[in-house]
């Protein structure tokens, strides 16, 4: 069975690229364009991995991460963000995310990191 990944991202070009690459790598991808949609989607579905931006409309990425860590603590999370400041990277790790990728992502790096995070489940 295909592993199921929730992508939470509000830039449609990034979404398109992630969907293309992850589908090509053999994963099932569900997209949520903001934090609210992500919470709704998480209520009714189980995911093997969540890839999320930090700056999202309505509910921030940090709030979403907190929610996931509370409800399904074993679900791995990869943060996808344009931010490259050390403090933001460190904050994300403090919240318990498994990995961090900066946008625009490298296709090889994405494949490797997704594979590695899914290996932990």
């Amino acid at each position, binding site marked *: 069975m295909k592993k199921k990944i929730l992508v939470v991202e*509000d*830039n*449609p*070009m*990034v979404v*398109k*690229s992630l969907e*293309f*690459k992850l589908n090509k790598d053999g994963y099932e991808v569900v997209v949520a364009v903001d934090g609210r949609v992500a919470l709704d989607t998480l209520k009714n579905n189980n995911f093997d991995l969540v890839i999320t931006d930090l*700056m999202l409309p309505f509910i921030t990425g940090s709030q979403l991460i907190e929610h996931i860590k509370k409800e399904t603590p074993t679900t791995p999370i990869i943060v996808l963000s*344009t931010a*490259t*400041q*050390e403090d933001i*990277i*460190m904050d994300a*790790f403090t919240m318990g995310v498994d990995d*961090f*990728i*900066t*946008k*625009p992502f*490298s*296709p*090889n*790096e994405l494949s*490797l990191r997704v594979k590695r995070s899914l290996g932990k489940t």
Partner: protein
Amino acid sequence: MHLNILVVEDNNTEKAARLLPEDWQVTYCDNSYDAIQLIKKEDSFQLLMLDEYASPLSAYQTFDYLKSEIKTEVPVLVLGEEGENGILEHYQNKMAFIKKPVTNSDIKIINDLIEKNFVPKEVSDKAYSLDYLNAISDSNFEFIKETLVIFRTSVKDKLIQLKEALGQNDFKSVAEIAHNIKPSFEMLENKTSVHICDLLNNRASKEEVPELVTELESQFDKINAELENDFPELI
């Protein structure tokens, strides 16, 4: 050629460094954070070698950080477990990948990487590049066309929102919109627009914002005009 190489030390990088020509100077550091600090302090390294999962920042994150925050483009050699050996074009030939363990025959890749970075790159006057989209999709033209359509429509909408926010002196929204569309310009490798988005998101004063928004719009129009010329079917 005497070269100054910075190595984030672990078993594999240390073994690889032993294969380098004897007259190359090798400096070791413990982690990628220290490497960043060293490069920040003395910008004299011609190559940084580290494991793809170096800590606390991976090789790719270190490269991104050096480029965006330190504004330096020291070539990076990544040692990893899975992948094809060679120079990674997506990183503008500034990064190469070698599968561990490194052998003598892999040294050619290091030489190629260094050589490429001593040769001035061809300067393009195009407002956009498809290199990134080609790399993502293995040059899948359908994907590229669809993504270009998304670029034209989504960024156009966001620019309208940006101007509305500016009209209302809502600088918080201006910054958020700039943050949102920055990756779109990055994916088409328009550095001017990426820089403007950074300024709008972080550092621009309120007085500078109107001019930056106008310039961003002008860059978008330029990209669009070139896209329409190069891909008439998009219109």
